[in-house]
């Protein structure tokens, strides 16, 4: 029985082979509207963090440094998140490997196998990788299908990454604060642009296989903060893409956003220190 009136049924979602605007185009934006590179904010942010850490820790020295990561900001430490299950983490790692391959123009013929080869070649012995090897056929097939679907969403959205935009993937950064008592660690999935010119051109890109939430926004700010502290230059924009929903969130980086992120980092330091 048809419950929809004649000529009233239309497709809810339309997929076109090419996105009208790729993620890369959105990241780089309009070349003429880029602001001048901000090379002065980093010192103030560092001072704000140093002062805040001193207020929290005082003269006390933890036996091991307090480490803040992007995942520390994603969710309160006492909540359970299904996206942190082993299968979800495997999917996340594989999709990240896929991003690295796509950035150098590699066209995967079998998404799951290529991403898995890259993971094996990259890390050698790895707990998560050995868990993957122990999956039964059914779980493995489910993971392969999942990764292929997420990979397809990513490759469709990403578009070609021109090498003249200086793409760098899986970039690590670490910042010691409070005399080494607090360490900010970060891995940026993809960075395009360079700090070499007078205007802000660096765009940061993060990929997640989970739907976007408030935590993703905090993570975007954190990436911008750590990159500012690392390079002493404020990046142009920070963005995150969900391969689950196809959503892309992009924020232009300004001083207010970086200050907010510094406060969020201090809140994490405070929580971690008081729970010790």
């Amino acid at each position, binding site marked *: 029985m048809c419950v929809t009136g004649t000529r009233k049924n239309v497709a809810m979602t339309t997929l076109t082979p090419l996105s009208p605007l790729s993620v890369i185009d959105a990241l780089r934006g309009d070349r003429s509207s880029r602001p001048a590179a901000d*090379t002065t904010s980093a010192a103030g942010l560092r001072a704000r963090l140093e002062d805040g850490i001193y207020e929290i820790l005082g003269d006390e020295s933890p036996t091991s440094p307090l480490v803040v990561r992007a995942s520390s900001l994603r969710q309160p430490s006492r909540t359970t998140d299904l996206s942190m299950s082993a299968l979800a983490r495997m999917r996340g790692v594989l999709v990240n*490997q896929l991003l*690295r*391959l796509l*950035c*150098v*123009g*590699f066209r*995967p013929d079998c998404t799951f*196998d*290529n*991403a898995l*080869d*890259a993971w*094996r*070649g*990259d*890390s*050698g012995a790895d707990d998560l990788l050995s868990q993957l090897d122990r999956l039964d056929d059914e779980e493995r097939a489910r993971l392969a299908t999942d990764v292929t679907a997420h990979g397809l969403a990513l490759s469709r959205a990403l578009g070609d990454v021109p*090498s*003249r935009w*200086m*793409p*760098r*993937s*899986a*970039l*690590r*950064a*670490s*910042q*010691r604060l409070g005399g080494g008592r607090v360490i900010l660690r970060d891995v940026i999935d993809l960075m395009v642009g*360079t*700090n*070499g010119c007078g205007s802000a051109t660096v765009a940061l890109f993060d990929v997640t296989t989970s739907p976007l939430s408030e935590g993703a926004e905090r993570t975007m700010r954190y990436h911008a903060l750590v990159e500012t*502290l*690392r*390079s*002493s230059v404020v990046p142009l924009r920070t963005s995150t893409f969900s391969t689950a929903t196809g959503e892309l969130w992009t924020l232009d980086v300004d001083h207010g956003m970086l200050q907010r992120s510094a406060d969020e980092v201090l809140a994490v330091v405070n929580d971690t220190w008081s729970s010790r």
Partner: protein
Amino acid sequence: MTTLTHRRHTSERLNELIASAPRGGACLTDDHRRALAARFRGVGATGHRRLDAWTVEHAGRRSGPFRWNPATTRRGIGNAALRRIASRPGLSTCDAIRDEITDQLLRAVAGYARGGSLASWLASAPPAVIALVSSEAQNWVTQTLEVTDRLDQPWSMAPSDAYYDVATARTTLRGRRDLVIGDGDARVLVRFRAGAPGKSAGPGLRADLIIETLAHPGGVAPSRIIGLWPEAGVSLCVDGTMADLRAGARDLVRTAVVQHRQSALKAA
């Protein structure tokens, strides 16, 4: 007194560090070389000893068995690609990396690559891993170009690392170097490092300094050696003074002693 300067890494500060380097480093004579060889011979060795900044920084601890992976290939392939870009201006980073990887693969196919070499490993790696090798090299090349594009003074890629065989002491010293700024006796060396500098980063730089000086035909030390840690946004430097050279040599000998003791304990 030894020198060790710590700065946040920005292009302006790097140019300042290069411009403010003392003119001309200290000079090692044949007597210095003979004295160092005697020290190494005095340590004793069970096999051929290889020392570098890494072993000095890790207090003589031997590294685990070496395994090629995309991260361990990035410096070799990245620097080779940068040399290609320097000799052929206009060549894109992507093409330079691809040409370098292709050359390595051709070497393996032609039978010139020995087992365990980068070329033979690449030849046996799946295409996805080779793409990951390109990605790592791309990171290395871009980070280096980001630095060199803003250098005020002429620079060149170091043709290779510095090696020095200590006469009759069964010891090979390896000093890593990436960029050479200026030339001759007034050269400044730059080394790119991963991660963040630890407490022994200074001794590591001094080890590179003394090895570079020993490998120099005239025994002339570079004016300054700068270690850049782009991931941490930090740079450290030491000057080519006699005090720093002596400290570097002492650290290398001390590392050899620790390694010898560890080998003796293992054998017992």
